[in-house]
């Protein structure tokens, strides 16, 4: 399909690239412990970008039998209004694409019955008389093909599976929600599911007792899930797009030590076993890891082809595109690599399984009074890139004299991500994947906690 489309574009435009993707999903859902539905979804789409008269245009279609001439016509019409961009499509790779397993037979071949079995396992293990358990199991198969008129081609098949568990406990007017997930390219085994169960149980059990929240500027342990509010400003500020637009506070800071020296963050599309991993990006750029922050120093910003051309640099292979619209910058796997005080690096365990660490990742022993934050409400709203955040807690625990004393409600935490990451009080021993991000818990000092 890609070849036919590019052939059809030849002669009518200066250059073009395209992506074709076919996705097939199978999902089962359990509501309140009961299997309620099974579904499939099939979708195929084609996205074309052209340079015509030096201007950029795009078009996409989900039509079952796309008409290449019609799509090229629509992309050219789009280019008539488009900006002038000096975009160079990468030519065929001189060396073979990096070899990265993205397709796992076990996942691809898993039957509906197997997906249902996994869901049932979780329902049974998580059942408690006073709790409602919702489970979803979703398996995805995707075929991707990319190509351009400079001769580059790439194709790969990928599998992905997501298992989510939501446990809700309502007692009077108190609503407690604990959520966890397994996301991987390969099927979880029973030990992985057991890890998920115990992770939910640990947090649920510690939450049963409600205690008064503290207030003031306090030490707060952000769990890998709770860390989202702190990471999001960095993700936005490290995008080459916001740098170009002048809205990134990190623009012009490459090479400066702005963070704790133990902090390194990579974008790594070559992490084995992750659904976001891939040998080539959606613009025919071979994948490689990018050091966003290395030992506290601002490293590279991430770029796609267009923003790289505008910034007069190279794409980092972070081009992502859907069926409609033009390619944009997207992260693949965000990986925290924490060094210790001696400068040594802790290895990142890429596998999913492993023991269930204690709540707080071993960081609470020295906390006299503080919080463990596992979930904040409203992350991503407000003025994210500025770094300041302020959110009520969704799920948080009070720590007193080195021990978790219970769950706190009706409290809000606030701080500035850039300021807080200047000094990390400690890195937890509980590193894990959450979606496409791997991180341990981080102890951050001086976080504002307000209570009613």
């Amino acid at each position, binding site marked *: 399909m890609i070849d036919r489309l590019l052939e059809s574009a030849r002669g009518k435009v200066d250059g073009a690239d395209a992506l074709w993707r076919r996705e097939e999903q199978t999902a089962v859902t359990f509501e309140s412990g009961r299997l309620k539905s099974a579904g499939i*979804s099939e*979708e195929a789409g084609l996205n074309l970008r052209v340079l015509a008269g030096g201007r950029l245009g795009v078009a996409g279609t989900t039509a079952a039998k796309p008409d290449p001439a019609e799509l090229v016509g629509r992309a050219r019409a789009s280019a008539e209004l*488009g900006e002038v961009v000096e975009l160079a499509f990468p030519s065929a790779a001189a060396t073979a694409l990096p070899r990265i397993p993205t397709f796992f037979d076990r996942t691809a071949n898993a039957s509906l019955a197997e997906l249902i079995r996994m869901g049932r396992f979780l329902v049974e293990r998580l059942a408690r008389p006073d709790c409602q358990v919702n489970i979803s199991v979703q398996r995805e198969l995707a075929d991707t093909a990319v190509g351009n008129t400079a001769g580059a081609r790439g194709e790969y098949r990928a599998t992905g599976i997501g298992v989510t568990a939501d446990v809700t406990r*309502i007692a009077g007017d108190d609503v407690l929600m604990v959520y966890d997930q397994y996301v991987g390219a390969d099927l979880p085994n029973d030990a992985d599911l057991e890890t998920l169960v115990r992770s939910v149980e640990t947090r649920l059990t510690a939450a049963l007792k409600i205690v008064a929240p503290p207030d003031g500027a306090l030490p707060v342990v952000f769990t890998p899930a709770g860390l989202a509010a702190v990471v999001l400003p960095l993700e936005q500020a490290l995008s080459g797009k916001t740098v170009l637009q002048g809205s990134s506070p990190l623009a012009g800071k490459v090479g400066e030590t702005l963070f704790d020296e133990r902090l390194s963050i990579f974008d790594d599309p070559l992490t084995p076993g992750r659904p976001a991993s891939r040998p080539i990006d959606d613009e025919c750029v071979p994948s490689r890891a990018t050091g966003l922050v290395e030992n506290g120093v601002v490293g590279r910003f991430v770029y796609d082809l267009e923003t790289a051309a505008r910034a007069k640099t190279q794409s980092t292979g972070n081009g992502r595109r859907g069926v409609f619209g*033009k390619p944009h910058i997207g992260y693949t796997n965000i990986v925290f690599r924490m060094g210790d005080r001696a400068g040594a690096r802790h290895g990142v365990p890429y596998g999913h399984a492993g023991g269930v660490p204690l709540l707080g990742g071993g960081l609470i022993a020295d906390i006299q009074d503080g919080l463990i934050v596992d*979930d904040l409400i409203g992350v991503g*709203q407000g003025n994210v890139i500025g770094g300041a955040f302020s959110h*009520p807690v969704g799920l948080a625990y009070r720590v007193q004299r080195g021990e978790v004393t219970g769950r706190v409600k009706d409290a809000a935490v606030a701080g500035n991500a850039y300021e807080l990451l200047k000094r990390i009080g400690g890195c937890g021993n509980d590193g894990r994947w959450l979606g496409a991000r791997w991180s341990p818990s981080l102890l951050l000092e001086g976080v504002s906690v307000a209570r009613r």
Partner: protein
Amino acid sequence: MKDRLAESIKQSRADYTEIRVERTWSSAVAFRGRRLETATVSEDQGGFVRVLNPGHGWGIASFTSLDELPAMVQRAHELSQAVRLDEPIRLAESAPQTGDAVLELDGDVRGVALSEKKKLLDRYNGAMLAVSNAIVDTQSSYRDEVSEVWYVNSEGTSLYQLRPEVVVSGTAIGRRNGTIEKGLESIGLRKGWNSVQNYEDKFRVVAQRAVDLLDAPRVRGGAYPVILDNELAGVFIHEAFGHLSEADFVYENPQAREMMTLGRRFGKPVLNVGDNGAATGLRGTLPYDDEGTPTQDTPLIREGILVGRLHSRETAAKLGERPTGNARAISFRHPPIVRMTNTYIAPGKKGAQFSDLIGDIKLGVYACGAFGGQTMLENFSFTAGWGYMIRDGKVAELVKDVVLAGNLFETLDRIDHIAGDFTWNQMGGGCGKGGQFPLPVTEGAPHVRIEEALIGGDV
């Protein structure tokens, strides 16, 4: 198309079958700063089949290739058969509906050249950039669509709906040294080209606000009396209460049902809340929901008492209530789930004014505009676009980073004054739930006073 769907329904071996087919024509223009990002025209189409069998659960299939329709009806049946249920799923009675519902296009967007749409957005985007050198970046977008939706089920419902939509949004980003602030304007309507003209002033105002916020102090965290402006009050009722009134939250959960018992007092007698999918000309308005049930005005809180909730046919049957026309899907890629439409706080006493709300507040916060909101059932967060301190009964200095955190029950009960200045806030964006985002909804409210609410921030 209806006949083709009816034929496929006839072939279905399942007890209940429904098919939804959509064809959406859309165009989009986006600016980032002075640069055009994209100007595109797209066509998206696909189908959705859902079936039910006695003693079994839902079987669902969605697909982009309509040639596959008969095969997908069969697949959905097989999937349903694979889901064994002891307690059967029942669907509440919903009288079969037939007909065409064509909403007013108010300037068919399909007849307007893409270059005209670019010009319009360029004007709004340019208006923001011209406000000040401190406006370093903008994100502006125009998107329109005309969606044709066919819905046929095995109980005799057969509908064709034409649903237009147009959204113009702009974010102005102001920066001075390390300080970055934003202002956001968004207009979203279930209408067409004529309805999004002449809004330059609105975009200028938000850009100026982004600049003003650069010098504004952060609000000091703590508990205050808070007045919400119309927009934020609307987001508040949607987030804090609306989601709890969606019956899929309670229908399988005895504890939740107890918490949300009809007849329970939720607020003072001044509080009246409802959801009206049948209101004329709003973005959340539809003649029929995605199960073919006609939409309606559903009272949720009357004089402080919980009196209703929002239903799909499944949740209504389970609770022995009537469907309310709130089963909605964002596209053929998704099943219908219980969603809001146009949710509102009804105006207070006629003639009640803002000045009546603020007069006796010594120290408080006037929270305005909405960057967004999220709910975790009893707890919620909403982020105001900007705010002012209230001092001695008057609006005082501009403050930023106004985030309200709250507990639903306490907060609703603390609403003690509601003004008479009701407006619908027709914004773009939409509501997200169960992986379905953005669903077009509208919120409406007058100015609302909360006796005491928690504002996050430095302490």
